[in-house]
């Protein structure tokens, strides 16, 4: 595979498959994802929510001034319509490009780090794939990260993201409780899964899920179950619980999707099953937890 797609916080990009995300931010207002190859950080995606397009000319001037202290040989460049700056910092050549995405009101900055000399072709190739990913017509927002291809209601926010070797978990919280969609991906499954996926899925439901009933599985050995979400506590909202789990034969990993929704708000649940919202994308490499937030 030539490139692997990454969609995070309404920004999409396609990167070389050996570039892994080592740092990420959950904040939809401002944040960063940083990607590294084996040896060094190679690519950075920064975003900031902005109600309107900034004055790029002035911004570049200010930026150039601030970088002059750290960089040498600074010059302005333009690539695929993205204005940018490139310069040398020690043994590295760093290029920074900026753009404003009107569809999502995001000011996006892309940073390339090259060892030795600038690779303009690589920059052009990647910049051509950086794009806004607004919510789909169905009202679902797509995320694609850490080996998972997910769709969550557009008003949901990324509440938690845990990334460890062979274990990734992303939780999206809805504006109203108990709405919560959770996606997990596990590796090294043969080392720890000593039961069937069906039994494992039932065990994951735990004691907070009552009236557990298995549903007919989908294609690809997907196991599904549903139940009633009954959190402990008088004031905690009850709801419906749907979960799916499957092992992807392509990468051998175990995928687990959970949808907890209020009984009234069953817009996406359970007609399609929790696995509808998540598809595995084993082509994407998974990253360690270091630097995760």
């Amino acid at each position, binding site marked *: 595979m030539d490139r692997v797609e990454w969609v995070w916080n309404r920004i999409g990009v396609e990167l070389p498959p050996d570039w892994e995300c080592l740092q990420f931010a959950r904040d939809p207002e401002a944040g960063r994802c940083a990607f590294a190859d084996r040896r060094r950080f190679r690519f950075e995606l920064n975003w900031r929510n902005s109600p309107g397009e900034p004055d790029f000319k002035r911004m570049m001037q200010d930026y150039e001034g601030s970088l002059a202290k750290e960089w040498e040989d600074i010059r302005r460049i333009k690539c695929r319509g993205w204005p940018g700056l490139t310069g040398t910092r020690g043994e590295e050549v760093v290029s920074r490009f900026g753009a404003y995405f009107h569809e999502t009101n995001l000011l996006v900055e892309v940073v390339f780090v090259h060892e030795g000399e600038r690779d303009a072709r690589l920059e052009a190739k990647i910049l051509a794939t950086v794009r806004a990913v607004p919510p789909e017509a169905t009202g679902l927002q797509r995320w694609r990260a850490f080996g998972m291809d997910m769709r969550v209601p557009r008003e949901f926010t990324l509440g938690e993201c845990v990334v460890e070797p062979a274990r990734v978990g992303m939780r999206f919280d809805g504006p109203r409780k108990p709405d919560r969609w959770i996606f997990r991906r596990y*590796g090294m499954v043969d080392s720890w899964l000593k039961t069937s996926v069906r039994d494992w899925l039932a065990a994951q439901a735990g004691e907070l899920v009552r009236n557990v009933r298995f549903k007919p599985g989908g294609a690809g050995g997907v196991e599904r179950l549903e139940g009633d979400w009954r959190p402990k506590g008088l004031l905690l909202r009850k709801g419906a619980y749907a979960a799916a789990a499957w092992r992807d034969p392509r990468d051998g990993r175990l995928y687990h999707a959970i949808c907890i929704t209020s009984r009234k708000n069953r817009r996406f649940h359970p007609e399609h099953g929790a696995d509808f919202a998540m598809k595995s994308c084993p082509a994407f490499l998974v990253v360690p937890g270091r630097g995760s937030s």
Partner: protein
Amino acid sequence: MTKRPDTASSAGTWGAMLQAVLMPNRAARVVREEPDGSLTIAVPTRKPSFIRGLLSWMVRVPKERLTVLDPMGAGIWKSCDGRRSVEEIVEKFGAFHHLSFHESRVSVTGYVTSLLRRGLLAVAVDASG
């Protein structure tokens, strides 16, 4: 754009670590090897300086400390043969368990660090970088 700390400034921080070569502690010995591949390894302990004379007679410091490695850990320990670099061990571990490079790197280096602390391994780093 507002100025943010540069991620890139920490580039290559793990490069030297990947080039390092790990070797088993010569004083360590395998006490037991189970059929499932797990190992029990004994490492000689050093008597703390304050335990001398009469105190050393009263407080018995064990001569060896035992460490039990599960099959996965034993595989990593055996890979540290003084010839392979950390990068090669990371690659081998990742290929065997279908992990990405950085997933494997974090797993292996975390485990190796605990083995170094326990004195089961020694590390050689190329000083030239």
